[in-house]
């Protein structure tokens, strides 16, 4: 019974996402994928291990590699080894003082990066 004076019933499209409503739980959370050793879980873990491995080996290569290059520099360029900075011979200054703060700084950067990678991994697992 549609009277002539009544407006037509209209369809209104509601586009706003239903942010308030609780999300339906996924049948398989990622943590369960990992626990049950599914293909997907293995992919998650492989990506984490690869990221951390690249980070760790990269740090070792850059810091330890550059420090370990010093004996070669001193052997090939004795003039460098004979340099003095602030009255202290360069090899003494580098190996007896400068390397230690460099190690601490490198370690600090590594800890930040590694914790960030773990945080991102945790978000990925919890979000999905």
């Amino acid at each position, binding site marked *: 019974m549609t009277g002539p004076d009544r407006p037509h019933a209209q369809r209104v499209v509601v586009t706003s996402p239903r942010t308030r409503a609780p999300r339906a739980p996924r049948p398989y959370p990622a*943590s369960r994928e990992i*626990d049950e050793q599914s293909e997907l879980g293995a992919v998650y873990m492989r990506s984490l291990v690869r990221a951390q491995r690249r980070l760790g080996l990269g740090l070792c290569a850059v810091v330890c590699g550059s*420090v370990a290059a010093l004996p070669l520099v001193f052997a090939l360029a004795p003039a460098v080894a004979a340099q003095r900075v602030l009255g202290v011979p360069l090899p003494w200054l580098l190996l007896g003082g400068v390397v230690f703060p460099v190690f601490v700084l490198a370690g600090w950067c590594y800890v930040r990066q590694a914790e960030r990678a773990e945080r991102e991994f945790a978000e990925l697992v919890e979000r999905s």
Partner: protein
Amino acid sequence: MNSTYGIVAVLAVAIGTALVGTYGLRISRTTSDFFVASRTVSPWWNASAIGGEYLSAASFVGIAGLIFAHGPDMLWFPVGYTAGYLVLLALVAAPLRRSGAYTLPDFAEARFGSPAVRAVASVLALGIGWLYLLPQLQGAGLTLHTLTGAPDWVGALLVAAVVTANVTSGGMRSVTFVQAFQYWLKVTAITVPVVFLVMAWHAHGARDLTAPELPVFPRETVVTFDADTVVHVDEPVVFGGTGVVDGRAVTGSTALAVGDHTIAAGSRLLAPAGAAVPRVSSIPHNTNETWAMPLRGGESFPLYAVYSLIIATFLGTMGLPHVIVRFYTNPNGRAARRTTLIVLALLGFFYLMPPIYGALGRLYAPELLMTGDTDAVVLVLPSRVVDGLGGHLLGALVAGGAFAAFLSTSSGLMVSLAGVLSRDVLRLRGIRGFRVASVPAVLVPLGMTWLVGKVPVADMVGLAFAVAASSLCPLLVLGIWSTRISTVGAVAGMLAGGVPALVAGLVTISAGGGNVFLARPAAWTAPLGFVVMYAVSLLTPRRVPAGVNHVMVRLHAPENLGLRSQDRR
């Protein structure tokens, strides 16, 4: 040196250690307390404890002695000891903690699930631990001998007794307190004298440490020889005093011509002020100027020796049994990383000091170049440079710190050795097994101190690092980061790297030095261990442990995700 102050300091350290240990005993009741302090130690406590445990006789007296004799090449010891922790931080700290095992053999079992891998890892951990405990006991003997003239075995026996009593009564929990306390004691004991030494050096006119001349006796000096010594005289010198030189008994003034001379044990020669110091034949001919340059240390292949040392220390740290056991006392992987970072800072600060002792020793205690007791430079320097009571007190402080170094490293080694022995060799469980096992853990190296020649303390520690870098380091690094390692590969790699390094080390120790390729084996044994482990694993893919993916989850996933794979036993 006035020995009374030194003896009081050493006794104070020994008694203080025992007291702090007893405090730990009252709250250390369960097996878990005993081994890993129930995993409740905060990062700062843990880092101090790691520092206290790690700064051994080699760090406290050995490094300064080697720098004093051989120059800046020896700076690679402290650099390597610290860089080892950076490598450990980047490659193993968090996964090692997450593996949730007590000892290194436990890690081998958790990762590979194979009794064979576990057995080989146990044997190697024991070998490395004993190789490392030996120089600690020797260093203790040296310290007491320098202080009091007591025979070398007294100090070794004293350290062995205090440590055994402490470890069997309190276990790891008390050791954690003791170690943390001893880090700060050691830093104080090495830093405070440095301040006074440098001030005194300035007051004496800040003489050039790198002048183009041989070291000279700063004043008239009595040089006492405890063993038959071959010295090389570079400039003719006339000695007073009595003794036996080149087989002839001498009294009064004795002229030594340029060349080699043998001075018999018991000789007491009086060196005139300003004369050039003769040197033990194992120390290279160096003026202070050439001594201060790198690659003049007198080895036959200096570049090989330096790189071998770098490889041994950078990679070896993670394979030391007493270092690894410390990581299980962190509550989780994240705390393990933060602890390691603090350790880097603590070690870096400490290692600024030994080179200063080594350099000032050239000016103020050069007669040690003549007797060859270069390891004693840290101990004798304070009373040489600072006059009167102040010098004696500083000397006592250093002696106490040195003793703390032997006690703390030996305690840490004892805990890990007794842990491995009781679980894997004697197969005794619980606290009783741990107590029984601590007896052989200390008796073996104590017996070995009778057999070894005169190898510098830091060099012997370097050998323990070389074995660790060649065997347990490949196991840890490849085991944590690669899923392809098979049980056969793990065993083959550990043996291929560890056995040659161990044999080279034992040959060097019993011969009292020797060929650089045997004395510094890491440059060839460590790559051998890695390559063999990986190659054999690729050849035996069927022997890769079945649950490797589960293990990887446990090693690498953060704890806070609540994964069931990470639930512990």
